[in-house]
């Protein structure tokens, strides 16, 4: 129940698809999705494997609640060793694909090996087949989606695909499903491309059951009511999306601007949720057309936008005159504040291109910002950029670079390396605003101290979705802590990290935790799944998952030295806002964090800790 108990193992080298039973012993310890997928990966690959070699594996995993009526229960994760980072990668996506995979009867797909020539996988219920992707290779995500529905004559098929970025080895390529939802970070799409796997197309008609329907309906109904009554999940997110944060974070002095030179963006309002909803000066219509929910989600934070047809980016391109996935906060920040660009339509266009060609807007915007930084310092010149002036604030340049990066052409080929490799190439490694090779998201650790520790210790490299202490430090959820203080942040970060690992592993969206605690979530999981799931067992499961991921990274060659932040955040104080004069107090938080984690002073989990958790 809840789990379908079936795994699809696809060997791309031999071209075979086999069914095997889910390891239920592991399911009871690691739940599903992130936890269980990672357990499988770690058991099956050498941690030192080259992420782009055939020996790396790529796992699509759903959670036990995926495909049920629990709010937000439509998610899946892609787990692999990350191309961008070389660390454990687990990228989570919404849309409808995850639920469809479950309806077809599968908990998980494990891809291994490498196809000789491009292929795609089709799944219609029990039937899984590999097909030649000769005619799809070179196509965008959007064209691939349309082509597969047409080839299979299945308009209700859901497709997860890579675009040209993933094919050509952009190091932060995504896997995009349902046109604009993405397993976005760490280069999971790059790994998919390295295996010559273009897409997975799924149609499922078998349904999902749960252990105790009566208890499940009761628990999920209570959960939905809590989401509806909460100001963030019931009002803020549906109305404004995650973009509700733009002005809030800017006022908190934690909106990283121009490659973290500044912590406030003077044009933040121009790229905010409020601006998306206002009629444009140019044509009197708003950028935002509607909000969209992912499968089963009663929050509906997704944005659907349409670019002004007369905007320079699309004036001669009617193929972009339609509605599609609009700006989320992280993308708006990376494409906007990080690069100093304030043209909302240009950001929306760049975001469309990221979805169309399948690459991560966070890493792209941050890498471009780092390149701009080097250009303004004179390290990069027009000679290297192919004649392009990489100046902060240029919308024309941003959109041109987005197009070139999508196709890995010209200077876009260098931007596709990611900021760490790009900055190292030009001898300025410290200008890459990243941890473990992955670019930061939209919160400055000088203005939100807990996030500095969360970034430094995130198992997949800098990330906001591994321990979102912004909830506590800025929004006061579940209780308010001082964003400028370092005291108590070690425990806070650990608590967020462990709880998030459990939420991710269930198949739920972490945005529910603006309203839900594990007290709300546990009854839903407990009713759906066999076993005894309480807030305590979930938290323990989350901690187990965290330590398992950590151990993989250590075995892969990472050390405590990699739990660090770029020099700029440790040495250059914030120039304005509430955090003025502050740097990140990582050095004060990290030793305490190791302690509360039960790790030694080098950041290695002690034997007692691993034994206690059964890792």
């Amino acid at each position, binding site marked *: 129940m809840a789990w379908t108990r079936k795994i699809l193992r696809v060997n791309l080298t031999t071209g075979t698809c086999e069914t095997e039973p889910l390891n239920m012993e592991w399911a009871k310890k690691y739940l599903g999705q992130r936890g269980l997928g990672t357990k499988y990966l770690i058991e099956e690959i050498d941690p030192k494997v080259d992420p782009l070699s055939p020996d790396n594996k790529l796992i699509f995993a759903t959670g036990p609640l995926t495909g049920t009526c629990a709010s937000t229960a439509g998610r899946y994760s892609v787990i692999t060793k990350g191309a961008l980072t070389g660390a454990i990668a687990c990228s989570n996506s919404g849309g409808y694909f995850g639920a469809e995979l479950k309806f077809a009867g599968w908990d998980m797909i494990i891809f291994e090996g490498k196809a000789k020539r491009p292929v795609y996988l089709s799944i219609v219920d029990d039937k899984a087949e590999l097909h030649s992707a000769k005619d799809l290779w070179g196509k965008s995500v959007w064209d691939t989606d349309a082509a597969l529905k047409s080839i299979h004559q299945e308009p209700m098929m859901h497709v997860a695909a890579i675009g040209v970025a993933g094919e050509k080895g952009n190091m932060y390529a995504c896997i995009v499903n349902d046109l604009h939802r993405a397993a976005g970070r760490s280069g999971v799409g790059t790994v998919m491309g390295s295996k010559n796997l273009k897409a997975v197309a799924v149609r499922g008609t078998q349904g999902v059951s749960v252990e105790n329907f009566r208890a499940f309906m009761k628990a999920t109904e209570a959960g939905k009511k809590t989401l509806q009554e909460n100001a963030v999940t019931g009002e803020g997110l549906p109305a404004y999306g995650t973009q509700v944060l733009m002005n809030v974070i800017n006022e908190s002095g934690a909106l990283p601007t121009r490659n973290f030179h500044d912590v406030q963006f003077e044009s933040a309002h121009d790229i905010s949720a409020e601006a998306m909803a206002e009629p444009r000066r140019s044509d009197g219509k708003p950028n935002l057309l509607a909000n*969209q929910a992912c499968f089963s989600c009663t929050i509906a934070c997704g944005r659907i936008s349409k670019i002004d047809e007369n905007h320079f980016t699309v004036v001669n391109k009617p193929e972009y005159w339609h509605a599609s996935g609009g700006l989320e906060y992280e993308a708006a920040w990376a494409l906007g504040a990080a690069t100093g660009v304030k043209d909302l339509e240009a950001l929306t266009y760049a975001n469309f291109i990221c979805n169309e060609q399948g690459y991560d807007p966070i890493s792209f915007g941050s890498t471009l910002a780092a390149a701009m930084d080097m250009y303004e310092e004179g390290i990069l010149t027009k000679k290297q950029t192919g004649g392009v002036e990489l100046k902060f604030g240029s919308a024309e340049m941003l959109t041109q670079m987005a197009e070139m990066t999508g196709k890995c052409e010209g200077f876009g080929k260098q931007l596709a390396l990611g900021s760490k490799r790009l900055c190292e190439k030009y001898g300025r490694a410290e200008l890459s605003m990243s941890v473990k090779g992955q670019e930061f998201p939209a919160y400055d650790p000088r203005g939100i101290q807990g996030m500095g520790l969360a970034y430094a210790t995130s198992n997949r490299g800098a990330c906001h979705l591994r321990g979102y202490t912004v909830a506590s430090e800025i929004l006061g959820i579940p209780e308010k802590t001082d964003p400028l203080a370092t005291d108590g942040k070690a425990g806070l970060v650990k608590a967020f990290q462990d709880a998030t690992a459990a939420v991710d592993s269930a198949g739920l969206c972490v945005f529910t935790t603006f309203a839900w605690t594990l007290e709300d979530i546990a009854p839903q999981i407990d009713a759906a799944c066999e076993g005894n799931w309480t807030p305590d067992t979930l938290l323990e499961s989350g901690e187990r998952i965290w330590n398992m991921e950590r151990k993989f990274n250590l075995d892969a060659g990472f050390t405590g030295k990699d739990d660090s932040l770029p020099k700029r955040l440790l040495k250059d104080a914030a120039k304005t806002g509430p955090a003025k004069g502050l740097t990140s107090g990582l050095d004060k938080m990290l030793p305490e964090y190791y302690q509360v984690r039960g790790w030694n002073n080098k950041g290695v989990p002690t034997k007692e800790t691993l034994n206690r958790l059964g890792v």
Partner: protein
Amino acid sequence: MQKTLVIDPGKCTGCKQCEMACSYVKEGTFNPSKSRIRVFDFHTEARFVPYTCTQCDDAWCQQACPVDAITTDPVSGVKQVHDNLCVGCKVCTIACPFGTINYNVSTGKVIKCDHCGGDPECVKACPTQAIVYSDAEQAGFDKMRQWAAKTDNAPQTTA
């Protein structure tokens, strides 16, 4: 009083909670492909539209059925399929102009919306009130009201 499902696509977010509720109550599992109500995603237009049987008064499906397996509930006016009579010939699915009666492979019968006997689950599951259950004779009331509000009958000021 006859009641009807009044659908406002402008409020729909595409979450498919209605499909989940419908398939759960009718099939005992969460299975949108067996739902009697379906949400359509017109992606490029940013529109989501829930669609289901409108319970025609003089129903094509009922007229077409060769074994009289579809009857009209005298009180609610709802058209019901009787599984004990349905032979799965699918002629009704051809006759229905709206595509809202469909064949269910696992039972060999056709399925359609029956308002859950007067307490539709989709209505209760919809988080945005895009589907409401109201007086069949007043289904257009909200739309009339919206247009009425636009009627300019404000007293004219005279110089």
